[in-house]
């Protein structure tokens, strides 16, 4: 009578392996081309990938075992940036998910503030940086507010959207059984909205990286953006490029980590 559905994971897994192998091949080919091109051009503005990677190594990752190979410069440049990025993003996620779910389930409220939200989302977050610079003195608060503000809207709007999409039969079931408000939000609305919430979180995470760099380019005494500005002022193009590549790697790693979390959560919360 019962039929247990077990999706075949092995095939997808093997497919994933071959895919990532060929992806690595393409990446390697591109780096090789880049190397050849930069060796050929011999421009000080375009150091070779090998030089860039060596520079990154020497700058940030040649520390001792005690500091997990991180150098003192890494503690100055990389960690504060990552810390602010994650803090700002998590803050935006918390506020966005809670507010978004409440808005999504209160039909009228969303209708009233909907245009306002669309407007707020449409403002390119960097445009508000000058305002924030007036409001908050240059430093930690400014960076955090900039990142959080930039990250908030995609999470909020996606959470509202996800919360609104709760199956009406499930909503009626919850009402019929007198499910309390807290249980309704945590055990029905949140699981139903999770895929949308994660979509919002993913957009926000890439925005967080952008806002982190921008806020540090403008006003910071440490962090990657600050280090890159210094490198430019000192005509140290290898360090500038090291920063760019590290930002790319950072974005890739963050996105991969979030995807892993998303897969794990969605598997633990089936639908």
């Amino acid at each position: 009578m019962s039929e247990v559905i077990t999706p075949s994971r092995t095939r997808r897994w093997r497919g994933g392996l071959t895919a990532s192998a060929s992806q690595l091949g393409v990446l390697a080919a591109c780096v090789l081309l880049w190397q050849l091109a930069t060796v050929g051009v011999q421009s000080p503005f375009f150091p070779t990938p090998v030089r860039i990677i060596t520079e990154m190594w020497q700058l940030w990752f040649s520390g001792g075992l005690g500091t997990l190979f991180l150098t003192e410069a890494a503690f100055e440049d990389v960690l504060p940036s990552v810390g602010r990025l994650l803090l700002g993003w998590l803050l935006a996620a918390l506020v966005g998910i809670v507010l978004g779910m409440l808005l999504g389930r209160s039909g009228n409220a969303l209708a009233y503030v909907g245009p306002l939200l669309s407007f707020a989302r449409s403002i390119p977050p960097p445009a508000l940086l000058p305002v924030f610079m007036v409001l908050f003195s240059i430093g930690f608060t400014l960076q955090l507010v900039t990142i959080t503000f930039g990250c908030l809207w995609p999470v909020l709007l996606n959470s509202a959207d996800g919360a609104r999409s709760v199956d009406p039969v499930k909503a009626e079931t919850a009402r019929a059984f007198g499910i309390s408000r807290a249980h309704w939000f945590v055990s029905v609305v949140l699981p139903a909205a999770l895929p949308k919430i994660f979509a919002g979180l993913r957009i926000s995470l890439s925005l967080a990286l952008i806002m982190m760099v921008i806020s540090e380019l403008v006003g910071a005494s440490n962090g990657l953006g600050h280090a890159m500005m210094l490198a430019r002022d000192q005509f140290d193009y290898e360090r500038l490029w090291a920063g760019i590549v590290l930002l790319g790697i950072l974005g890739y790693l963050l996105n991969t980590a979030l995807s892993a979390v998303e897969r794990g959560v969605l598997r633990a919360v089936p639908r």
Partner: protein
Amino acid sequence: MPSMLEVSELTHTYPGQQAHTAIGGVSFEVTAGQLTCIVGPSGCGKSTLLRCIASLVTPTAGQVRLRGQPVRGVPEDLAVVFQDYGRSLFPWMSVRGNVEFPLRSRSVPRARRRELALSTLERVGLSGAEDKYPWQLSGGMQQRVAIARALACEPALLLMDEPFASVDAQTRFELEDLLLRVRAEQDTTILLVTHDIDESVYLGDRVLVLSKSPATVLADVAVELGQQRDQISTRESELFVRLRGEIARTLRNAPQNRGEGDHDEAGEDEEPGEVDSSGEDRADEPALAGSDSTGSERGSTE
């Protein structure tokens, strides 16, 4: 027997440009412990009636009283089994999680919750499935979970909206007997909606026959088939055959309500709306043909 549910002059009109009156003044009373079946054609307003009783919808007019008290807001000692079991269970909760969910909001302590869930699951024949997820179960088993969830609340009144309409005939028989068994054990008052005349007679102590939209009560038929019922012999019994004929005839001869442009079958010699209880053997009428074992052609109001 004390009165459990009193519905008086209940009327509901869905608002909108094409305002639709789904229930047109329904009154009836249910005594405690009774299993009342409500039978009526699809779209006649059966679900709307249950929603009004459960306060999921505020009726346009009329009153619902539960144990003599006017109902305001969803009553606590009420549970519902929906037709659409697939959508009414929560796929991210295990079977046990689904059954325990309403109890959590009722502040039942964890240990007691677990005990209630497991014993109820055992009663509906789902021992061993408590850690599965609803989507790992067949339709019939999913509906058993929904029934267990409702029973675990130990409701004073259990509302069931076409609970067995979406399962195959064999499973339906099993679930019908499960309901009768559980009901004998738990002594719950049950209001069950169906569009299947045979099912209403087989399950009910009493059958309320509803007209086409807007629903009104056409007849209130007592079913004196006793507590012990059997899927084969009960359905063959003379009383069963007579009752289903009576109900089918009531539905067919009902006056056509305004609104729905339905093909007219009026013109019979009987008074419109009157229940034919002559007991004549007319069980070979077209609408009633085929009480065969496949159940595919059972007297249906659809």
